């Protein structure tokens, strides 16, 4: 029996984490996502599921707490917003290099710099192209509703542990701050120590006589060893690209034009599609749910059918590069977006579609 609640996206993250059986949350307050830790502290999950919730001294500390928790085979997560996630990049690179599973939520706000606290999607590149140093990838999920904020906690942990790779939920201030109806799964138990060791035999849980010692590290002093690891990581990323692409389409069957948008921009664009359809414009919406792996082939599949693509993003044009890669010149691709915390309205998007794609 799923339980129905009315909640903010940020609160849903907290509720879902406790219900999923997360072992630890480590974070540092930053607007617009502080409700995640605040909600957890009110829920007191240490009294019920035994989940640890800790306010760290900085985002640098919290991501390294994730390193320690993840290396222990525990389900650990943090949440932050853009400037805080920038601070975490070193740790994220180490976590990717050490092949540790964990979940990082970025409720994106406008930048660069201290920027604004209003919603933005300008951390797309940071999330999907690396962010930190070295050749690595995060699994990146982009929720477009409060329900998905909740559901993606479980999905992100499943993927993270399946591939021993950090997963990011790339949200934004709109999804974090808005309230919607959300249904929750029942509470699940956290792993017992036996289950944890069975599921994660690589974890540093204390060296027992029946196994070699486990060392969690991203250090390979010999270049030949480091390259070996890089090959292994790349093979993993190819596997993720093959198996884990997720996306959603809306009114694409007869579409002559396509809007590609993720997260809250996809919500706004859905309304723009409705507006355009009332004018007789045959436009559909393709919403990437995984930003890595990106639905390149799935977008390209529309190349024959459509005359043009508009990407809608709350940034200066980031995902548009991946959409252009997807169709490799076969279809015109333009970007429309507001920046710095400004949010597009559905009619602005519809107008941009007419001007940049249909009329342009």
């Amino acid at each position: 029996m799923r339980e129905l609640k009315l909640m903010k996206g940020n609160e849903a993250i907290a509720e879902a984490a406790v219900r999923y059986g997360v072992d630890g949350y480590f974070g540092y307050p930053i607007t617009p996502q502080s409700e995640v830790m605040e909600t957890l502290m009110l829920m007191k999950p240490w009294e019920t599921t035994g989940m640890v919730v800790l306010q760290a001294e900085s985002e640098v500390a919290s991501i390294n707490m994730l390193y320690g928790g993840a290396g222990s085979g525990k389900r650990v997560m943090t949440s932050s917003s853009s400037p805080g996630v920038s601070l975490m990049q070193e740790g994220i690179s180490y976590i990717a290099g050490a092949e540790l599973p964990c979940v990082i939520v970025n409720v994106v706000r406008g930048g660069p710099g201290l920027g604004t606290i209003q919603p933005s999607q300008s951390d797309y590149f940071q999330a999907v192209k690396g962010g930190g140093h070295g050749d690595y990838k995060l699994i990146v999920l982009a929720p477009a509703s409060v329900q998905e904020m909740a559901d993606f906690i479980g999905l992100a942990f499943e993927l993270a542990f399946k591939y021993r790779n950090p997963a990011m939920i790339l949200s934004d201030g709109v999804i974090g701050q808005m309230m919607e109806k959300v249904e929750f799964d029942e509470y699940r138990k956290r792993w017992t120590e036996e289950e944890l060791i069975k599921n994660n035999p690589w974890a540093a849980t204390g060296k027992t006589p029946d196994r070699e010692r486990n060392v969690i590290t991203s250090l390979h002093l010999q270049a030949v060893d480091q390259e070996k690891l890089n090959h292994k990581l790349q093979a993993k990323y190819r596997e993720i690209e093959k198996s884990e692409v997720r996306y959603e389409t809306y009114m694409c069957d007869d579409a002559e034009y396509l809007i590609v948008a993720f997260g809250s921009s996809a919500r706004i664009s859905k309304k723009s599609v409705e507006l355009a359809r009332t004018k007789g414009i045959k436009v559909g919406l393709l919403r990437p749910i995984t930003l890595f792996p990106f639905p390149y082939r799935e977008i390209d599949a529309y190349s024959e059918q459509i005359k043009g693509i508009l990407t809608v993003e709350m940034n200066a044009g980031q995902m548009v590069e991946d959409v252009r890669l997807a169709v490799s010149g076969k279809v015109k691709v333009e970007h429309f977006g507001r920046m710095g915390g400004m949010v597009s309205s559905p009619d602005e998007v519809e107008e941009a579609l007419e001007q940049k794609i249909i009329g342009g």
Partner: protein
Amino acid sequence: MIDIKDIIKPENLVFKKSKVLTDMEMHYCPGCSHGVVHNLIAEVIEDMDIQNSVIGVAPVGCSVLAYNYLHIDWHEAAHGRAPAVATAVKRLMPDKFVFTYQGDGDLAAIGTAETIHACNRGEDITIVFINNGIYGMTGGQMAPTTIEGMVASTCPAGRDLKRDGYPIKITEILATLPGTCYVTRQAVHTPGSVRKTKIALRKAFENQIAKKGTSIVEVVSTCNSGWRMTPVKANNWMVENMFPVYPLGDIKDE
């Protein structure tokens, strides 16, 4: 003629390598204090019979490869972040023994915030702090604990207090925090000091059983390569120059 086999008998054994030490050859320079402290930690782990339940967190610095030498589970942390890593490990597995092993650059420069806040929260962990006043691994640059006038590759004319600031007495700072229960400064330059350091390490690990808070064992150490001295000269130089700034003994024991 005495055959060597006649000598290698259990009754003649006066010292043996701890089973917690691996067989890997250490990369440390001859005369370096790291090897001695590694051995002491291994012995304490063996004596307490906690090999199954101890987790080490190695730093960035010369002891970045500490995980190669102790036969236990390890995390290799980012530079300065070992106390944050250890915090999560201990919070999530409160029954395990968790320690960090950090140098002066790691603990007192880049990781100052993580160190102070882990101690301030009173994390039930043991921090082993090797203070040799220099960045050994990267080739002898100035450390936060480099003493006045001491030569390093980034202060070739010696530490200038006006330009470089003062050698930081981080251990004294940590002792002021209510979260710490045991703060001590030791050395490993004589048999007597080695024994004292072992006692200190044992106490620092035992404090985890009583969940008394954070224990810190600073070991004032030599880096004869970085200091450009023979091991013997380095030991003497440490006694004459380092000990007046970093006096040995317990700073706090509650």
